[in-house]
């Protein structure tokens, strides 16, 4: 299996989500997936660019889609975008070009033509979670598990943009794919209602009180339900829930205690026995410790 890899810039790979890239690369290497980086990719535009000029934002995202077609001329290019925002923006662009031909489709196609691209719209945008669960399959992942996470209570937090608004691979209201993945690793997944609630996004940097409040609601609910760890699939969610955790604790006057927030790939890699250093565990603000022995005796009692 081979995919085109779109690293994404705004929040993920070279910046705060570095651990995500490291762990994703290590896990996919172990599972025998080859990746090829999209040459000369540009920013997807994120949610901010769309607020200033939507058409230009579509132009930015569609350049990536066209580049993928150029790089894989003979087959259907499958572009893997690990960041939820990149994933949704590129999917949205694809949908808008098809759905609103006059308003969006024609101008974008013309602009791409002038820049020397041929856009047919065959590029598929995929998320690593989709690839792990649907392409590689849970059975193969189960075979690779060396350290089963028995007794670990995992709260899967999908974040808002992973399944909304275009549910490409999972339910919009109550997604299950990440829970199934965690159960395949031997952990017990937590049923909780805030799986897809917004974490505040860039609000924590701009209107801090509002942003921290949203993150607090998620952390509080996860803790109340007895989660040992929260796993996310978005670099923004991870930054908000983890780096701002101390500030949330101070604001809520000790309402919540330390809760490790991991990328789901980090936990998959951990269960597969990949060394912690390669998975970027040293980049965490709240350290993650797991000792299966202790948990097993607790379970017996």
């Amino acid at each position, binding site marked *: 299996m081979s995919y085109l890899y779109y690293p994404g810039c705004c929040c993920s790979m070279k910046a705060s989500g570095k651990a995500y890239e490291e762990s994703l690369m290590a896990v996919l290497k172990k599972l025998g997936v080859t990746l090829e980086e999209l040459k000369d990719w540009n920013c997807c535009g994120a949610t901010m660019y769309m607020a200033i*000029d939507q058409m230009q934002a579509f132009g930015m995202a*569609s350049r990536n889609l066209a580049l993928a077609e150029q790089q894989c001329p003979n087959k259907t290019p499958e572009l893997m975008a690990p960041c939820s925002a990149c994933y949704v923006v590129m999917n949205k662009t694809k949908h808008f070009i098809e759905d609103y031909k006059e308003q969006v489709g024609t101008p974008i196609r013309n602009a791409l033509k002038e820049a020397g691209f041929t856009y047919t719209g065959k590029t598929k945008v995929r998320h690593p979670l989709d690839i792990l669960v649907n392409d590689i399959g849970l059975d193969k992942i189960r075979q690779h598990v060396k350290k089963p996470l028995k007794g670990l209570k995992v709260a899967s937090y999908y974040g808002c943009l992973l399944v909304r608004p275009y549910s490409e691979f999972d339910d919009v209201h109550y997604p299950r794919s990440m829970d199934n993945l965690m159960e395949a690793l031997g952990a017990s997944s937590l049923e909780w209602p805030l799986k897809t609630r917004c974490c505040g996004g860039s609000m924590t*940097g701009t209107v801090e009180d509002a942003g921290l409040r949203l993150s607090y609601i998620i952390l509080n609910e996860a803790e109340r339900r007895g989660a040992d760890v929260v796993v996310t699939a978005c670099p923004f969610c991870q930054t908000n829930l983890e780096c701002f955790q101390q500030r949330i604790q101070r604001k809520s006057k000790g309402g919540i205690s330390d809760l490790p927030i991991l990328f789901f790939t980090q936990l998959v890699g951990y269960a597969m026995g990949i060394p912690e250093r390669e998975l970027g565990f040293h980049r965490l603000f709240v350290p993650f410790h797991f000792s299966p022995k202790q948990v097993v005796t607790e379970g017996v009692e």
Partner: protein
Amino acid sequence: MQQETPKQIRFVGKLDPDFVQKMWRGWKKVKFEEEMDPQFAEKVASYPGCNTLFDCIQCGTCSGICPMGSFMEYAPRKIVGMIRAGFKGEVLTSYTTWLCASCYACTVECPKNIKITDIMYALKQLAIKEHMHPRRLPIPVLARQFFEIVKKFGRNNEGKVVINMYFRTNPLLPLRNLIMGIKLYLRGRIAFTQDKIQNIPQLTKILNTVKM
């Protein structure tokens, strides 16, 4: 009896004319048709994906599901109603559109399949275009900084955008966030070098063609 009646009248008359003019602002909510913009709804609906605006049944599902709803001055249901009524000034100068974190909860839940998040995007663009966005809110400033950096280099730099925003809104905030910055730096999670794409002219050409 004869004395009481004028007293009562005087009391009614004494219901402070100043109060009506200065204290009670209810009259501001009442608008005459001349003060509204009847073309506003159509202007918003002309943006891609926003033409379903007229299907709204004002059920309030969007306002209920919105995680930022409690911080907004007009919740999404009200905004849609106000757009249709033509309250252009109120809608474009409000904080509501900028507080939208674009989580698409409303778009997914709407029983009439209205793309409320895209309506919010349309309002943001209109507000920027007509220079009506709230001046002291950091969110439009952040958006603008992001826009300019991405347009120039093709890629974004998280640290640079945030620092630029702080210096334009509240120069004292970086000091408060300094510890967080140092922590991020020590863990290698923040970069200060600007990434560039190789083919910037190509990107600029796409952007300029789309604009026209």
